[in-house]
């Protein structure tokens, strides 16, 4: 009897010890965006790998800490993925997200403010390098100012990358059709928007569809880039009066834009807004047939197979693919400025506005707080993003321009650095500037207008109804007030 009891006791102790050991194990889940170390495929023969080494090094230094890198699915939108994992309380501890999205989503308590953490020293940054004493010093102020959420006074995002978009152009194809491929201004093939339309018109007259792009509502970002940057050009003189008090230059957040609608500072009936709609309608004939349901991949194939001379794409990560796939000479240009030649409401634009910039960064999610492992998560966060590690990640696979002091821009991305000097657009993509539903319905309305299903008058009426409704919903949901714009 005694022996049996002793045996049970020993077994219980052994299990208890293992359970205790198991409790000391910490697993940190993280997404790393474009740097996820994927397996090679035909479409992606040389995926980034460096994150595997970074993780292995960190795990070796920290026994008991496991790092699991999570790939985000391609077949659903980022919004859908986040809503699923956050609502299921199964979100990774660190996720990459666009700062505007984070602003929109911070009301759900999904993200942990990083204000105190970025004031701490980052021990993984070498002495003498900015950021060693104070983590925030590793990144230029312009990045922090851009991504700081004035609404809550919190910093949720650490942005170690910058991206830009641009027009890839097929030099051989354009020159064969007698079209000039010299830059008219420092960052663009064209002096202004009107010149661009003329030159693309010449391409069309030569029998080619000019521009491969996608306005599919499933992969709408290419269209969204035009939408936000061109709308900025029509309202640039008014933007500052829409900001929350005390703010420095930034892209409008959801509250500011919603309140501007509610306070009548922007309306679909404005002359400027109508001019903007017509500017987009004049551009639409330059887009390839079927753009309304075309995916980004299909648009890319049209460019790379020499069917069309222009492609609008991400000027950072796509550069790798174009370098690999194109068997012709190519270059990258940026949008030209929209000037008074196009509309009197666009008279004060010295330059185009930047799509991209310091958009996506790392956040710490509420899961770290729920599980009480914020310190461990921040430690890995600091390690991964510190210059010695991040420099290797970006050099291994140049998919974005590093923003931290002490890191060089990879050669492949140098042509796009000039784009980053442009002022950021104040009005972002349709979804982040107001709401996901607004973005979706706005794109569908624009498609209806472009394809002749509705006329301009109906478009204005529907757009006004949509903006007013969504602004009201967003303001009510967040219990915002809008008095600040009237002071």
């Amino acid at each position, binding site marked *: 009897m005694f022996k049996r009891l002793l045996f049970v006791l020993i077994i219980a102790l052994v299990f208890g010890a293992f359970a205790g050991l198991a409790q000391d194990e910490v697993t940190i889940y993280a997404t790393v965006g474009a740097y996820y170390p994927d397996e090679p495929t035909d479409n992606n023969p040389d995926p980034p790998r460096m994150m595997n080494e970074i993780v292995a090094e960190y795990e070796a230094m920290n026994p008991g800490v496991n790092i699991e890198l999570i790939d985000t699915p391609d077949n*659903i*939108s980022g*919004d*859908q993925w986040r*809503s*699923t994992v*956050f*609502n299921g309380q199964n979100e990774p501890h660190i996720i990459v997200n666009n700062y505007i999205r984070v602003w929109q989503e911070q009301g*759900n308590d999904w993200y942990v403010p990083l204000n105190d953490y970025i004031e701490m020293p980052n021990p993984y940054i070498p002495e003498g390098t900015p950021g060693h004493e104070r983590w925030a010093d590793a990144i230029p102020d312009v990045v922090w100012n851009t991504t700081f959420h004035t609404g809550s006074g919190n910093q949720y995002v650490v942005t170690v990358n910058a991206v830009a978009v641009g027009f890839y152009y097929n030099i051989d194809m354009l020159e064969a059709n007698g079209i000039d491929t010299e830059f008219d201004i420092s960052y663009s093939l064209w002096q202004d928007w009107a010149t661009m339309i003329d030159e693309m018109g010449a391409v069309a007259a030569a029998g080619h*569809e000019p521009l491969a792009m996608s306005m*599919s*509502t*499933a992969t709408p970002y290419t269209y969204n880039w035009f939408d936000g940057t061109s709308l900025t050009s029509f309202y640039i003189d008014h933007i500052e009066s829409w900001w929350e008090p005390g703010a420095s230059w930034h892209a409008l957040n959801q509250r500011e834009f919603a309140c501007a609608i509610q306070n009548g500072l922007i309306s679909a009936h404005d002359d400027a807004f109508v001019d903007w709609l017509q500017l987009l309608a004049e551009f639409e004939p330059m887009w*390839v*047939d*079927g*753009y*309304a*349901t*075309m995916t980004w991949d*299909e648009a890319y*194939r*049209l460019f790379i*197979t020499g*069917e069309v001379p222009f492609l609008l794409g991400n000027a950072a990560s796509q550069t790798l693919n174009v370098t690999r796939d194109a068997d012709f000479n190519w270059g990258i240009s940026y949008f030209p400025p929209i000037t008074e030649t196009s509309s009197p409401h666009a008279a004060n634009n010295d330059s185009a506005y930047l799509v991209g910039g310091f958009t996506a960064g790392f956040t710490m999610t509420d899961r770290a707080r729920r599980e009480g492992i914020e310190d461990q998560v921040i430690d890995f966060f600091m390690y991964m993003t510190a210059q010695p590690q991040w420099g290797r990640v970006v050099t291994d696979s140049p998919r974005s321009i590093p923003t931290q002091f002490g890191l060089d821009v990879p050669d492949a991305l140098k042509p796009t650095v000039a784009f980053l000097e442009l002022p950021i657009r104040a009005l972002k993509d349709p979804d982040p500037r107001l*709401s*996901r*539903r607004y973005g*979706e*319905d706005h794109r*569908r*309305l624009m*498609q*209806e207008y*472009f*394809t002749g*299903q*509705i006329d301009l008058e109906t478009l204005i009426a529907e757009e006004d109804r949509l903006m007013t409704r969504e602004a009201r919903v967003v303001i009510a949901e967040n219990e915002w007030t809008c008095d600040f714009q009237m002071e």
Partner: protein
Amino acid sequence: MFRSATRSSSHALGISRGPLPLRLWRAKWLYLALLVPVTLLLLFEWLPAFSALYNSLYIWNGGKVHIYVGLEHYERLLSDRTFRVALSNLVGFVIFRVVMQTVLPFFAAEMIINLRSARWSYWWKIIFVFPMVVPTILNYLIWRFIYNPQVGLLNEGLELLGLDAYTHAWLGDPLTAMWALAFVRFPWLPTLQFLIILGGLQTIPHEVHESASIDGAGFWRRLLYIDIPMTRRQITLAMILTMLFMTQRFDLFLVMTDGGPGYSTMVPALQLFQSAFSFLEFGYASAIGVVLFVGMLALTVINLRVSSGAAAD
């Protein structure tokens, strides 16, 4: 047939005699065996369906926000332009596909029944059933490629035939997009409907066809006066199934056009999906689901009534 088989099985098990409690006790293992699938069915099929009814009365973002709003979502549906357009798109699409997916499988089954060679009949059955093993998503992607305006097979084929003027952005033009979707999986020979109708035709006694033939009935008369009336139940079932499948279908629209251009290929099931997973309006999505359910139920009942009434005539 089924009833008599069940009765004889019960006899064989010795559980059909005596008072009800005793019969239940004797059959306890059968009921216990049934309990597992019934519980799973309740848990994973019925509960979510009924929870949609409950959630349709709430603003629910799939997470913490859960606010009772009564019938507000249903009122919103009445004035929702997207839902109106989606419903009208769906009606046209379903009518077209129900007709095609009943008539063509019927003729395919007729062809097989009329083949004299059993071997050929077998191979034709294989040919018609084979598409069932092709993943649906692959089928859609192939059709996307067929319709591609620049390099798609359809436009290439038209150009080869010298019909360049008819090349088109089939999915990108609101005038052709819904038709292009309706033609996906042409020539509309869905395996299930085909097998149901074939099964019905095979149950018609050979003697009936022989008598008709002796009486001088040709193919069309036999079709009209024997085959169609005698397979009415199978035809009705095939129609109902097609109607249900097509109404619930959103993958086709999501993959091919995402409801565009504009709203020209939007259908309620896709709107439901987007409301829930893109806009986090699970309450509103539930209301769309409830309306679809009620609509489908009503149409199914009407269909059954009409067909059983016609059969009685």
